């Protein structure tokens, strides 16, 4: 029992790192653009398929392939923002942009179905199947590498946001879009780049998700996005630190519940979400302003 629990905690923390990476992208996009990117889930799957293509057809190493897929997803993100999100104006902008990103999601899903079909695939590499004995547990290398990559990328995002001029303009836009514009921040450029960055991290998240999970198909995006949405709302929309904490915590709880009730463990996410929102409508780390119309 004790070792099972310890294993569950370790799995939860390792998995939480990956979710943290994807959730930070999502909450960053919300903070700057004031939209929820419903397409984030299917973009993770798109990233996983890009890695799949590179590793199967070009025999590129999965981690090396990220040098191609991350910039590719960044470009896709910027194009989507400029083409479909930026033109939206008016009082219904909030719901419109949400629906636009939902539409993008079902288009990508449909295209993935057409190209790859509904069969589940997995990403393969030598370190996916091998595991290392650590503290008495057998841990797959991919989980460790993936966690390491997530930590590095989250740290890089942190440095970008808090140590660069661009990061300062991003944070200024998150705080007050109009004020940022008045002091000379090119808000449109910041929005496009942020959307690109938020989508680019899904390439890394998707690769690790595809290699360490039990396979994926175009439909897997729904499960992912519903978890990611629960995480960022739970943390409080726009809170980056909150997204990190919530991801690691919730994945750990899920993997502990998984010991007893595997088919219900995902309900933990939604149940926690509902309970937290009954007590704190703005989320745990959220500002009350997130609630205002």
């Amino acid at each position, binding site marked *: 029992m004790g070792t099972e629990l310890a294993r569950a905690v370790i799995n939860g923390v390792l998995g939480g790192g990956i979710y943290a990476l994807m959730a930070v992208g999502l909450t960053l996009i*919300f903070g700057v653009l004031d*939209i*929820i990117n419903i397409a984030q889930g299917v973009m993770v799957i798109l990233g996983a398929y890009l890695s799949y293509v590179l590793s199967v057809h070009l025999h590129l190493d999965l981690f090396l392939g990220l040098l191609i897929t991350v910039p590719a997803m960044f470009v896709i993100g910027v194009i989507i923002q400029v083409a*479909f999100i930026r*033109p*939206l104006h*008016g009082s*219904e902008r*909030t*719901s*419109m942009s*949400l*629906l*636009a990103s*939902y*539409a*993008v*999601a*079902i*288009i990508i*899903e*449909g*295209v993935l*179905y*057409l190209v790859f079909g509904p069969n589940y695939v997995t990403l393969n590499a030598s370190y996916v199947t091998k595991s290392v004995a650590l503290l008495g547990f057998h841990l797959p290398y991919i989980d460790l590498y993936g966690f390491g990559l997530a930590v590095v990328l989250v740290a890089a995002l942190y440095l970008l946001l808090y140590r660069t001029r661009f990061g300062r303009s991003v944070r200024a836009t998150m705080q007050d879009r109009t004020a940022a514009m008045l002091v000379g921040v090119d808000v449109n450029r910041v929005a496009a780049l942020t959307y690109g960055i938020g989508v680019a991290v899904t390439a890394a998240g998707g690769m690790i998700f595809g290699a360490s999970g039990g396979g994926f198909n175009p439909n897997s995006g*729904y499960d992912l996005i*519903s978890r990611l*949405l*629960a995480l960022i*709302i739970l943390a409080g*929309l726009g809170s980056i630190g909150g997204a990190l904490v919530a991801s690691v915590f919730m994945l750990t709880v899920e993997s502990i519940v998984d010991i007893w009730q595997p*088919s*219900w463990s*995902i*309900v933990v*996410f*939604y*149940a926690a*979400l*509902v309970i937290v*929102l*009954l007590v704190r*409508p703005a*989320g745990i780390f959220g500002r009350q302003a*997130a*609630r*205002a*119309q």
Partner: protein
Amino acid sequence: MSPATARSAAKAGQSAVPLLPPAGVRPANVTRAGVFVLLLAVSIVFPLAVTNQSANSIAFQTLIFVCAAAAWNIFSGFSGYIALGHAVFFGSGAYAAGIAAKDWQITGSAEFALLPFAAAVAALIAVPFGLIALRVRRHTFVVITIAIFFIFQLMAFNLTSLTNGTIGLNAPFLLWNPVTFDQRFYYIALALALATIALSWLIKGSRFGLQLRAIRDDEDRAASLGVRAMPVKLTAFVISGAITGLAGALWFFFIGQVLPQSGFDPLFDLTVALMAFLGGLGTVSGPLLGALIIEPAQQYMTTAFNNSYLSQILLGALFLAVVLFVPRGLIPTIAEKGSGWLERRRSGRPAAADVPAAADVPAAEGTAP
């Protein structure tokens, strides 16, 4: 009804010649009533004229979506709270009817007695759902509805003793003549669709409807003016959920089977919203028009291409096109263009009798809520 009549009386009172037709009966209203009567006539004659089975099946499913989109609009369109979890009610209605038929051993056409039961179950689910979700606004509300939707889909998969899990439930077998099978379902759905549209028209003109639209425009201001926001929102949510549940049960009887992924379908959430957006969010005829365009098109494409993925891509593309190019929906855009054209034509005419009427139309429109 009375506020609506009071308002049209007030409108008439503003004109210089109060009781002359141009003030009370606007040409747009006449056109609208004419189009509606024409549509009604066509929809009544349709299954008698067209005996093609697949056409009748598509027509039935279109009417189901007319109900669902109009019901969605009663809550989301009028209140401005975009709910993306109405499949919860659709699936719950279907499953409630299926479980009740199985447990109470209801067979044959007695199953239709379960329709009010399905609506009641959906309404009962809508109460706690609404109490949780309606505490938050905007993005958070949307996400909560999506989260609750996924909880229900998981329950349909996992509560196997109740729902049969992935195998799903079968509807009682109907010993109807296969030739008239689709026709009968069509007329039941038509009655339900008409009732839903009539209800949304009544609600829109009522005090309750005005309260909902006040909430949409500015909830805090509406509350400070004495609108009890939560009960109003919740009532609309429950009405909307009950109708959707009824439509779900009827759809289940027609299809004969419900599975977790067909009853609780994420695309359903999106499709009803798209229909309302395409036609015009918060209008009575908008969801009707949207459903009449989208559902037949989608059914046709799925059979024509023999590929549901392609029609899914086209649905997404259509959605993007609506959001980008007709964000207010077809009905308001057309109405605006139409009335602008009418106005120009009227003011261009030199007849003296028309001058007060022409000056009148924009004034009446400006004050109409």
